[in-house]
């Protein structure tokens, strides 16, 4: 059923485009915006973590850079927070060029541990960085000075902006998937040594993947800061930021185009609902659920939900299987 298979990604995007407008409930609208935001960072992580198989636990460093770039430009120079997005992207390139080459010498778990350590270090540095607000963090504008501050009472404008960024990222990922680069990244993910021995410039392509991945994660951080209007070391550079991206991508299916989006659609409402129901004392409940989800995925479906898709959509995949 080729027409059906071509049509469903479009159908998904159409449903996403109109979904939050069907409800007047601000809570659901806010959750919808956060779902798309989480899908951006998880999809960005997916470029290096999914396609290239380099499981980074340090992507919070990019998210934090984006968020801090936005609120530093506002807090110190009075610029609209969104002006921090290009600055965050440039800073993410610098960080990738510094941390990429040494960490790429590590393989498998050691790469994950190395990136984890660097992100933990970054959080400590920011806590002690007075100019960036130290442990207290930074605030965004309290009242909109102009439209450029992108300060809205309602979550729908954020939703629309986030969805446009997500569509751009997924379109780029789709192109990459079909290009030589996607081919090389999957080969690196499947067997780095084998790819290397065939002449794939492994280190270079891993760096390309990290540059793209880091830039979009930084953009997600900037967008987060614009919407929430506050960032501190934990909400920008905290380790749970990294874990979120990994778990969301793993639940949906690493190395698949729509896997991270599917993961975000399931996990973010879960997290927001438990936070709302249990209040301040229960904010950790979602992470208990995360642990359970990681165990269930690892045990029963290491490919995430994407692995189960052919079971649902028998016609579509039988020929490929």
């Amino acid at each position, binding site marked *: 059923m080729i027409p059906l298979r071509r049509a469903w990604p479009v159908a998904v995007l159409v449903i996403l485009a109109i979904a939050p407008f069907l409800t007047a409930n601000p809570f659901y609208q806010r959750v919808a915006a956060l779902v798309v935001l989480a899908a951006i960072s998880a999809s960005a992580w997916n470029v290096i973590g999914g396609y290239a198989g380099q499981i980074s636990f340090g992507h919070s460093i990019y998210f934090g850079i984006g968020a801090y770039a936005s609120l530093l430009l506002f807090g110190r120079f009075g610029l609209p927070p969104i002006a921090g997005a290009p600055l965050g992207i440039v800073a993410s390139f610098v960080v990738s060029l510094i941390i990429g080459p040494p960490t790429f010498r590590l393989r498998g778990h050691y790469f994950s541990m190395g990136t984890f350590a660097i992100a933990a270090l970054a959080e400590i540095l920011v806590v002690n960085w007075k100019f960036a607000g130290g442990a207290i963090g930074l605030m965004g504008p309290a009242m909109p000075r102009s439209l450029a501050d992108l300060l809205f009472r309602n979550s729908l404008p954020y939703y629309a902006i986030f969805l446009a960024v997500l569509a751009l990222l997924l379109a780029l990922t789709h192109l990459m998937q079909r290009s030589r680069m996607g081919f090389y990244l999957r080969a690196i993910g499947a*067997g780095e*040594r084998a790819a*290397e*021995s*065939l002449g794939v410039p492994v280190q270079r392509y891993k760096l390309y993947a990290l540059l793209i991945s880091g830039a979009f994660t930084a953009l997600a951080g900037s967008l987060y800061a614009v919407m929430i209007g506050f960032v501190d070391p934990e909400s920008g550079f905290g380790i749970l930021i990294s874990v979120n991206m990994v778990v969301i991508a793993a639940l949906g299916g690493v190395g698949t185009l729509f896997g991270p989006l599917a993961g975000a659609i399931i996990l973010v409402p879960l997290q927001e609902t438990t936070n709302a129901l249990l209040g301040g004392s229960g904010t950790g409940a979602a992470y208990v659920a995360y642990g359970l989800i990681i165990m269930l995925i690892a045990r029963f479906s290491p490919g995430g939900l994407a692995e189960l898709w052919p079971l649902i959509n028998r016609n579509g995949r039988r020929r490929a299987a």
Partner: protein
Amino acid sequence: MNAPLLKVSHLAVHYGDLVGVSDVSIEVAEGTVVALLGSNGAGKTTTLNALAGLVQPAGGSIEWQGGRIEGTSADAIVRQGIALSPEGWRLFVTQTVEQNLRLGATALQDRRRFGALRDRVFSLFPNLAGRRRQLAGTLSGGERQMLAVGRALMSDPKLLMLDEPSLGLAPAVVDAMYETLGKLRAEGLTLLLAEQSMELALEFADTATVIQTGRSVLAGTAQEIAENPDLHRAYLGAAL
């Protein structure tokens, strides 16, 4: 005699504190078949991996067409015309036969030659032609070995290194594999072959080097080696 295509002198490779090989020397003349013999763990795979740039030597030199290449990265070595068909194949099992071949052609300068090289692989290994859209993970052991060799050939190498091409294969499949290697030799391709099966390798090769616990201990024509009484002792681990 001309300078050899490949000349390895006193190669040493360490894995941390472990010594992979300590002193291996090999000469490979253009257009010949050289066998690398030795018992399990002698250092054959380590030697081939060092030549392919997958591990970096701790000492010694590797001369390729007159220039030194030790310390060169793996992807640059493939571009210089040295290809490895690795032990255990290391195929991309979730990709198709044709995609594996396409990855093998990564180092190819002129991408228009992909089609011609692929057709050559399919004519050498007709079994693969019928399975070009099949995932590599669904192939039989013999077909996987064929695909590993075919994939290495896609970079159009001057030297093809084969790590245990007969390992774990049925005797009839081994015969077919060596028949194909014979065709490649007839085309003028230079082969460096690591084999545990001594009889098979000495029957096929022009010259041979014997490695024992990380050191090359014997070298000569295949016939000299076959007739050397020390050969069996080297295999059994006696000091020479």
